[in-house]
């Protein structure tokens, strides 16, 4: 027990303790004053900055992308003013409700709605997801009105990529799209998260991304905590990306793409003097305009199911046995190895080597055949005979000199280089010795030989000029000078004359003559068999079994300016290829005449390539509904297409065991292209 407690002692205790309470209160007051002083004075600068960074939102303005121009300065890819809508998933409050409302306001069908849901699903939270572009003003305005219900949705006026010739340039130019998560990881810049910013996903758009991109503008905006804009403080204009000028001739590219028509194939035109690639058309194709907001599931399914592989750039990723188009090169190798052009052999429809007979395509025989006849009549026996004498290495060396099997220094993502077979290569690849039948196959461009259409065009240009023409795709203001191929004497004229006779003489492609006065064209047909004779006759039956049609040419014959290669997949023979080459070359000399021919064809085919693509899309979408797997992200798509193209190359897994038996009629066509 404490000392006696009384009323008085309690009063004293109270006084003492109330003093303590007062002191504590005063102490806390001082502490608060000190704390506030510290925050407001000592840390004032720091918090001022934080308040400012709260208040002011620096938003980037996506730069206008540089144009891609053709050789004459007309745009192959430009920008057009556009109303667009994007979503930032991070800021969505109710994903489902937002998608529903957007679909309603923007009139989405089920497919578009599902594609949008997929895109949001697969994006990371900070990434910008495109919803729609190219909106008309009514929809844009309707959406803007409902914005308070749609946090995280950003309608804006910006620029969209526009490809005036759509499908014709799809493979060449590529397309753009919103940056993916992987692309942001590689290049973590705020611009890649800016709504409306698109980067190149494929083709030249991807190769020249840095040149085309430009410098973003910036806008300082006062914003509320919920992101509502209060006012603009300051704006810096964007710096548009640099244009790039291609060697491509826009109208020619478009013409060639359309002229391929219903076939699956490619056309390459090269300027013999400069190496300018004037046309690199690959069909069927896709519309790069419709890829820039993400690739829809219907469109992707339709394109990927098509056995004509519209997503593959056949100019660079298509490898084909060249067929008889190699014969001028083989003949050149004979000349360079010392064979006289007058040396001849009698063709009885076949050549006996040891106890074997190798057949000529012409079972009746060509009679006495010299080099020129060997080329213009495409006699197989002539080549079998002298190749057995001179050996394979002579041929493979010449193939490489002509650019076959070569990769060219071009700004492209993927360029397949094919195969120039020789004994060393075979031993290394299959562990087998080179056989007589291997040489036989090689002289007629079959067996292991695989080239792409670009190589064939370069080869044609080198034969046409006798110079080491190198292809180029970018106009850099320089005029290239090419060295001589160092062919001896008049060898190159011998070959050129024989190629002229193919068309203008007693050759296999008389109907390839240009319908232009004073311009003669020289060329060589080729038919590449893909299956043996007993499986298919090569002209009818399953598309996959039909022969490839090939044609290389150059014109004018007396002063070569343009060289061209046409490869029609499973066209049923060279008759599917040379009419296209003829019309494309005609377009260079007399566009009106060439267009007349094309318009006639397009009436039969049901419109231009673009129109037919749109029609088949509508039909496919109506049939397919929404139960389709989503399309892969753009960045994955190019890889996937490339991998599929590699897998599709017809290089045999096991060594070829026998000579190919050529078909009897190397120029027949399976369709009505012959007029």
């Amino acid at each position: 027990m404490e000392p006696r407690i009384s009323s008085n002692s309690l009063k004293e205790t109270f006084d003492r303790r109330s003093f303590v309470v007062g002191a504590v209160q005063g102490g806390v007051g001082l502490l608060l004053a000190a704390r506030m002083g510290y925050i407001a004075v000592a840390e004032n600068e720091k918090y001022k900055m934080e308040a400012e960074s709260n208040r002011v939102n620096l938003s980037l303005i996506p730069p206008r992308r540089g144009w891609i121009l053709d050789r004459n300065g007309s745009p192959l890819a430009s920008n057009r003013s556009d109303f667009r809508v994007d979503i930032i998933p991070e800021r969505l409050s109710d994903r489902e409700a937002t998608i529903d409302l957007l679909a309603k306001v923007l009139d989405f069908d089920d497919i578009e709605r599902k594609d949008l849901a997929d895109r949001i699903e697969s994006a990371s939270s900070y990434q910008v997801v495109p919803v729609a572009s190219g909106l008309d003003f009514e929809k844009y305005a309707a959406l803007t009105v409902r914005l308070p219900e749609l946090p995280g949705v950003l309608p804006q006026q910006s620029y969209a990529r526009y490809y005036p010739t759509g499908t014709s340039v799809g493979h060449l130019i590529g397309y753009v799209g919103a940056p993916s998560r992987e692309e942001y990881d590689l290049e973590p810049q705020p611009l890649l998260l800016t709504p409306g910013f698109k980067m190149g996903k494929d083709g030249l758009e991807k190769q020249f991304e840095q040149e085309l991109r430009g410098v973003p503008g910036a806008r300082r905006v006062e914003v509320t905590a919920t992101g509502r804009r209060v006012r603009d403080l300051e704006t810096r204009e964007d710096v548009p990306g640099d244009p790039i000028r291609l060697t491509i001739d826009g109208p020619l590219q478009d013409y060639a793409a359309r002229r391929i028509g219903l076939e699956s194939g490619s056309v390459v035109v090269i300027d013999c003097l400069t190496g300018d690639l004037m046309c690199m058309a690959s069909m069927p194709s896709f519309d790069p305009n419709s890829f820039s907001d993400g690739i829809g599931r219907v469109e992707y399914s339709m394109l990927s199911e098509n056995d004509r592989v519209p997503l593959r750039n056949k100019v660079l990723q298509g490898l084909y046995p060249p067929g008889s188009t190699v014969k001028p090169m083989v003949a050149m190798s004979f000349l360079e190895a010392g064979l006289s052009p007058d040396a001849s052999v009698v063709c009885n429809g076949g050549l006996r080597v040891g106890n074997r007979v190798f057949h000529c395509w012409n079972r009746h025989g060509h009679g006495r055949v010299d080099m020129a006849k060997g080329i213009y009549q495409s006699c197989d026996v002539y080549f079998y005979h002298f190749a057995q004498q001179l050996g394979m290495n002579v041929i493979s060396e010449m193939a490489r000199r002509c650019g076959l099997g070569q990769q060219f220094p071009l700004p492209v993502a993927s360029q397949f280089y094919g195969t120039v077979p020789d004994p060393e290569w075979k031993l290394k690849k299959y562990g087998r010795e080179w056989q007589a039948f291997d040489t036989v196959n090689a002289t007629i461009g079959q067996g292991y030989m695989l080239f792409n259409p670009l190589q064939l065009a370069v080869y044609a240009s080198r034969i046409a000029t006798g110079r080491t023409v190198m292809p180029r795709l970018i106009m850099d203001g320089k005029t290239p000078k090419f060295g001589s191929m160092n062919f001896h004497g008049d060898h190159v004229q011998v070959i050129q004359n024989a190629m002229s006779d193919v068309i203008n003489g007693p050759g296999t492609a008389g109907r390839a003559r240009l319908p232009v006065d004073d311009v003669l064209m020289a060329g060589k047909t080729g038919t590449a068999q893909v299956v043996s004779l007993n499986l298919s006759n090569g002209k009818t039956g399953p598309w996959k079994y039909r022969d490839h049609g090939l044609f290389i040419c150059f014109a004018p014959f007396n002063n070569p300016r343009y060289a061209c290669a046409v490869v029609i997949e499973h066209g049923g023979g060279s008759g599917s290829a040379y009419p296209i080459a003829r019309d494309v070359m005609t377009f260079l000399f007399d566009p009106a005449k060439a267009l007349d021919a094309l318009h006639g064809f397009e009436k039969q085919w049901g419109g231009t390539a673009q129109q037919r693509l749109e029609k088949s899309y509508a039909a496919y979408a109506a049939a397919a509904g929404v139960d389709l797997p989503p399309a892969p992200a753009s960045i994955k798509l190019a890889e996937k297409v490339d991998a599929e193209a590699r897998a599709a190359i017809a290089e045999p897994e096991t060594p070829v065991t026998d000579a190919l038996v050529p078909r009897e009629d190397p120029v027949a066509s399976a369709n009505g292209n012959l007029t």
Partner: protein
Amino acid sequence: MRRAVTLPAPLAQIPWQVILPIALLVAFGGTVLYSAAGGSMSPYASSHLLRFGVTLSMALVMSFFPMNLARLAAFPVYAAVVVLLMLVEALGAIGGGSQRWLNLGFMVLQPSELMKPAIVLVLAWFYHGLPVGLIGTWRAIVPAAALIGLPMLLVLLQPDLGTALAIAFGGAVVMFLAGLPTKWFVGGGLAILVTIPLAYFFGLQDYQRRRVTTFLDPESDPLGAGYHITQSKIAIGSGGLFGKGFGNGSQSSLDYLPEPHTDFVFATMAEEWGLAGGLFVLLIFGLVLRWGLTVARDAEDRFSRLLAGGMVATIFFYAAVNLMMVMGMAPVVGIPLPFMSHGGSSMLTNMICVGTLMMVNRWNRQPRTNY
């Protein structure tokens, strides 16, 4: 009193030395609320001033209550508020969710707010009635603990940790002033130190626990629960010495500051008026609390002393916890700043405290009637 010379008697009896500072603070609060509403009297500033007028009249009326009435009413008032608390709890259970208020039609009443002065009143009454010799025995603490514990429990059920702590603090200060042995407080303090970790892990709701952790490290979650503290510190810190000027606070006007008119009104003020405004607010609270303690010390009897001391403690608790919270020194608990925050219940409670102090002040200056 000096003013007694110039003022008529009834006016002279009014303690102007507290009413004037409080009126100044309320007016200052009004300007801040005017700015927080984007430069408009409605909805905050006008009702704030109106409430002050009403509650001030009420407090003045209260100050005329005789001591007998206060003593008689002490327990019934306490019991009535406990019943209201139970009613709130019951209504909440029926309505299917927690509820803290009763809608009386003309105003929305939070009974837990009323409990803050009521607990002080009932404890003052209890220790006044307790025989002097028993102050060191269990009979001094067990009934008091029960009186504090019951409403605390009811408020915690709501759940409202801030108000429960305010009730406990008011009660504890009255017990301390009543002269309970120091060792009990030391022991109690130690017990709390032990209990805090236990309570943290077992007693707190998830959202309360998060508030504690983010208080300790607000930057750990700048966009989540730490947002409030961070934005409040940005508002205060960016104000500097003299602030950004009236109506120029970007933190509050652009909605970065949460609750700029209630719990974080001080941050709103500090952004626009700076350290100068903050010191002014602290000064006024200092004046009011110092006056309150003087009233308590001047009181002749135990009941008045404890009553006045407890009321001062209650106001102090409000102000101190709110200011510590907005400056990032305490977790975010929903406690408004007296006389500045917009809110009827808080104004009512604080003016009841002030009214009680004025009442005791009047008793002090009246001749003894009941000895």
